[in-house]
């Protein structure tokens, strides 16, 4: 049976999946401005399977659960999203293999591992106008809040607000990765779809978090 704190992981993963499915059109439209418009569609095809098979995903422990979610993502999500989001889930799962409980420290560690996976797989970093530009500031804020002793709800709320501001901020950036990068200067003026996706997911988690048992 999964370890204490596992329900937090379930909340986050389900929130990510539901957000992706609910925002399929919105995310694709964002991606169509200077890209090829597949972001929302690609992500939704994988996450809808996560939702459809939710009860059957192996919950032996958090690591196994996240690895199985990663496998669903890579089996169905194409484009760059499959490899990037799949690697993120894989790395997050690996970091909590053998963990006795899933608390704030593990949450930060999982997110850091996910960031590392995305950077490596995508050969990217903060400043390239990608999902990292929303995710990294959010995790920095989450870690800061956790270290300060904030309660979980407040920490998540702050991280969500940070990610939203950061995602909107990508509008002024020049794209250096993905299809938008081919458009050069024309990529300035619209936000990165991946960054907005991360921010909306954070918002969903923040909205749901205080309602949980934690």
């Amino acid at each position, binding site marked *: 049976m999964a370890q204490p704190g596992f329900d937090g992981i379930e909340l986050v993963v389900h929130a990510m999946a539901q957000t992706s499915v609910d925002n399929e059109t919105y995310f694709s439209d964002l991606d169509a401005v*200077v890209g*090829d418009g*597949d972001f929302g569609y690609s992500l939704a095809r994988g996450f809808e399977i996560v939702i459809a098979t939710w009860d059957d995903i192996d919950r032996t422990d958090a690591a196994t659960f996240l690895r199985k979610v990663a496998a669903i993502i890579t089996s169905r999500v194409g484009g760059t999203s499959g*490899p990037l989001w799949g690697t993120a889930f894989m790395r997050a799962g690996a970091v909590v293999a053998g963990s006795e409980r899933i608390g704030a420290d593990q949450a930060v560690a999982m997110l850091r591992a996910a960031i590392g996976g995305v950077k490596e797989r995508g050969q990217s970093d903060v400043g390239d106008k990608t999902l990292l530009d929303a995710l990294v500031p959010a995790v920095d804020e989450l870690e800061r809040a956790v270290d300060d002793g904030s309660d979980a709800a407040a920490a998540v709320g702050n991280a969500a607000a940070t990610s939203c501001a950061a995602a909107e901020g990508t509008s002024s950036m020049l794209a250096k990765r993905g*299809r938008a990068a081919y458009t*050069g200067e024309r990529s300035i003026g619209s936000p990165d779809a991946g960054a907005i996706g991360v921010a909306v997911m954070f918002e969903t988690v923040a909205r749901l978090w205080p309602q949980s048992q934690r």
Partner: protein
Amino acid sequence: MLQGIALANPDTLKYVPEYNLIMRADAPNEQKVSIMQGSGSGHEPAHVMIVGKGMLDAACPGDVFSAPPMDYVLETTKLVNSPKGVLHIINNYTGDRMAFDMGREMAEAEGIVIATVIVDDDVAVKDSTWTVGRRGVAGNFFVIKSVGAASEQGTELADLVALGERVNSVTRSMGMALTSCTPPAKGSPLFELGDNEMEMGVGIHGEPGRKREALASANEIVDELVEAVASDLPFKKGDDVALMVNGLGGTPISELYLVYGRAHAQLAARGITVRRNYVGEYCTSLDMAGCSITLVRLDDELTALLDAPAQIPNRIF
């Protein structure tokens, strides 16, 4: 779509729905390297309709304009694995490279011998540190045709890679759009293009290209494309070339031949001789009106490989 292709070619092709795969019914063939591709859908006939003897052994496309999930790449590689190895031909896009990198890694872990050729024939986008490099577009056809023909002759994997890279290195393309295109899932045009505008250097996934310009005459458009492509290698006086005028999906063939005529004349004026020509739809972008021009510098070996017979569902040469 794939079901239709398989139904239309029951003796030669096989459809594997789990991996969105069209493969030769007789693959793997132990006497040859298996050759596979797997870009996004939406470029037909590339690549599911050029699976067959003398060209691809398998194509496992992703959703429209999306690289396939890496599982499709892995499982397809396993299905067509031959004792002589598997060759992955990929267009140079981040998603395609990631999917094939990851799929290859996992397949090699199972002992399969794989090599990769990357196609990056598009001259439109500047090769800079900000992108993964130039895009692979219609020139992909020539890499597949040459390598496909050579593989039927039993050529070894390493030599096929060298050949594919050589063909890629003497192939240059650029396209332009008169309209956008409408992905089925979206149901509306991917980008806005005014009646009086055209997009020079357009990508094949609806991504904008080099420059938005005011609509010009066909001659002016062709001149610009030929100049961009010819000057890039550069193709020189005395060169023999293959010339492809590729329709992007929404342009009538009559117009493609109009383009061909002007391109041919422009090349002749430069002292460049067109030895082989390919006019039609080879690598489309759904229903986009527009075309691309591809030049390949020929020699006797390449010409023979292009002339070698092939048997694919979509006869385009």
